[in-house]
């Protein structure tokens, strides 16, 4: 078990390093001169030089890289060029929006999808199965931002019960905050749930065909018993894989949905940074997002070992 853990941590660190390399190369090396990207081609030579000094572009490449990584590890994400505040401050203020939103969406999606998947699998080829599959087909095909717009048309424009966008602010009280989060969460969660339900269903159906299910039934375990006690835990393995993969899509989705609903989260920050050509913010934010996804995948890997004893590398008799 210890070897497994060590191997995984090693892979994690390696992946993070490679990620920093990729981001560094793309955003600092490839553009040639980050200063001119930030200031535009018509900028004066003096301003360009001043910026180059500030950014430390004149240093050798590997110094720039290692000092950046060192800064990252200590939590120093640089100073935003546009706002002249530490990037970490900007992120902290926005993450109070993005993180709860992502969490709520993931929870809602799982709460909807897994029961639906189980329902479909245990009623295979009956009307309930067909219903769940149709819901899944529709959910997969609908872009989440369009779904968000449809929800807005229904609940904000026609029924006027929920705000069309914007964030009421944490001081406004818990109810207005929840109201601001409600439509975004649903818009994020439902398309994800559609995919997850489908995966859960097919994973369960596959497992139910396996030999050990027949053995369980031969022992006298009821149909319900085989489903919950035997099939589900084995089906969880592919389901957890997909949930892990879904996280990166969820992240992308959160960025999009924040833009639909004008929520002041990480998503809006990144787009503002792009339109303002603030490469420092973009660079550090991108590596932060990538690192989050990598960390989540790492934790999913660990979760596997909890669910599937075959991966723990125990000793054979």
């Amino acid at each position, binding site marked *: 078990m210890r070897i497994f853990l060590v191997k995984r941590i090693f892979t994690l660190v390696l992946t993070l390093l490679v990620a920093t390399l990729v981001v560094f190369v793309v955003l600092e090396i490839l553009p040639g001169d980050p200063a001119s990207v930030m200031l535009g081609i018509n900028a004066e030579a003096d301003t360009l030089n001043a910026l180059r000094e500030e950014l430390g572009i004149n240093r050798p490449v590997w110094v720039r890289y290692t000092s950046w990584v060192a800064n990252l590890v200590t939590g120093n994400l640089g100073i935003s060029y546009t706002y002249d505040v530490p990037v970490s401050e900007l992120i902290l203020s926005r993450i109070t929006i993005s993180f709860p939103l992502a969490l709520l969406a993931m929870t809602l999606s799982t709460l909807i999808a897994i029961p639906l998947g189980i329902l479909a699998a245990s009623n295979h080829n009956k009307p309930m199965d067909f219903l769940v599959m149709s819901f899944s087909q529709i959910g997969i095909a609908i872009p989440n931002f369009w779904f968000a717009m449809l929800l807005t048309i229904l609940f904000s424009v026609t029924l006027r019960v929920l705000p069309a966008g914007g964030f009421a602010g944490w001081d406004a009280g818990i109810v207005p905050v929840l109201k601001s989060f409600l439509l975004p969460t649903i818009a994020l969660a439902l398309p994800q749930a559609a995919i997850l339900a489908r995966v859960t269903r097919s994973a369960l159906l596959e497992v139910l065909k*396996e*030999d*050990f299910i*027949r*053995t*369980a*039934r*031969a*022992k*006298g*375990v*009821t*149909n319900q018993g085989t489903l919950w006690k*035997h099939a589900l*835990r*084995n089906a969880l393995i592919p389901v957890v894989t997909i949930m892990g993969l879904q996280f990166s899509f969820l992240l992308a989705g959160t960025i999009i949905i924040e833009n639909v609903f004008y929520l002041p989260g990480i998503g809006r920050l990144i787009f503002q940074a792009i339109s303002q050509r603030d490469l420092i913010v973009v660079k550090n934010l991108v590596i932060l997002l990538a690192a989050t996804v990598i960390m989540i995948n790492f934790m999913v890997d660990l979760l596997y070992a909890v*669910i*599937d*004893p*075959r991966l723990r590398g*125990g*000793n*054979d*008799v």
Partner: protein
Amino acid sequence: MTLLKVQDLCVTLNTSHGPQQVISHINFSMNAGEKLGIVGESGCGKSITALAMMSLLPPDSKTSGKIILEGRDILTLNSKEICSIRGNRIGMIFQEPMTALNPVQQIGAQISESIYLHMKLNQKQTIERVKELMDKVGLPVSRFGLNLYPHQLSGGQRQRVMIAMAIACNPDILIADEPTTALDVTVQEQILDLIRDLADSSGMALIMISHDLGVIAQTTQNVMVMYTGSIVEMGSTVDVFQNMKHPYTYGLFSAIPHAGSSAHLCRKRLSSIPGQVPELHLRPRGCNFADRCSRASKMCKAKDPVATRVSDHHQVWCYHPLKEEDKQ
């Protein structure tokens, strides 16, 4: 005392060619403690017969006839009643030990599951019983902990776990469906001995399903030869093997390679039954074996053969059963 009586059992399965009858009009009975073998080629319906007895056939299959256990017809029971019979009055072990155990559950838990379901024991008693069972099947608890996972065991060891699971509640009947086919030859002997000894010591009836005549010879008192869903010959193992009457049974025996001192037998070419087992949807009228039988007559191809009594414990379904001179 008759323990099990199967009457006119027919099973129809849903295949890609539509519903096909895979078992037609099977009749047999078993006494307590009897050891019955079912032998035949792949696809002859032996496993289906066993699954029918456990009511483990796919939900879109149709079964007719009666399977009477302790006075109750299994085929008329609801699912709750069936679940109380499975693993409790009838235990079953399957062919592929490598895939027959739940990979994420410890073997101790898997064995104790039947105990929890059917016997009223507290936790301490259950654990005691599980340890007892593991000792009985040759997995001494001193070497094999209850918290092992299936992937940590070999094929033979997993098969022993399956046996422990099947006999956990002292069933009246143990069905063994090709229990050794997937195992190494050296392990096969051990497992067969184990099964036979367990049946002997507990007075449990045994149904041994195999395509291997040697296995049948070693473990059974009576035997049923099946071909394409029907019984073609049935009787005591000794009788049938020494005095076989059906051309198919004879064909099965002749196909066994001979080694040893019978020089004239060694020099012969391996004989095989000409032709092939007909596909489900292409089974002919009359005797299913007629197309491959050198003795077939018009009557064979027109009407299904009926049972002819050869002796007290020996029946054959053939219009032209073999006589001594015919066997060479």
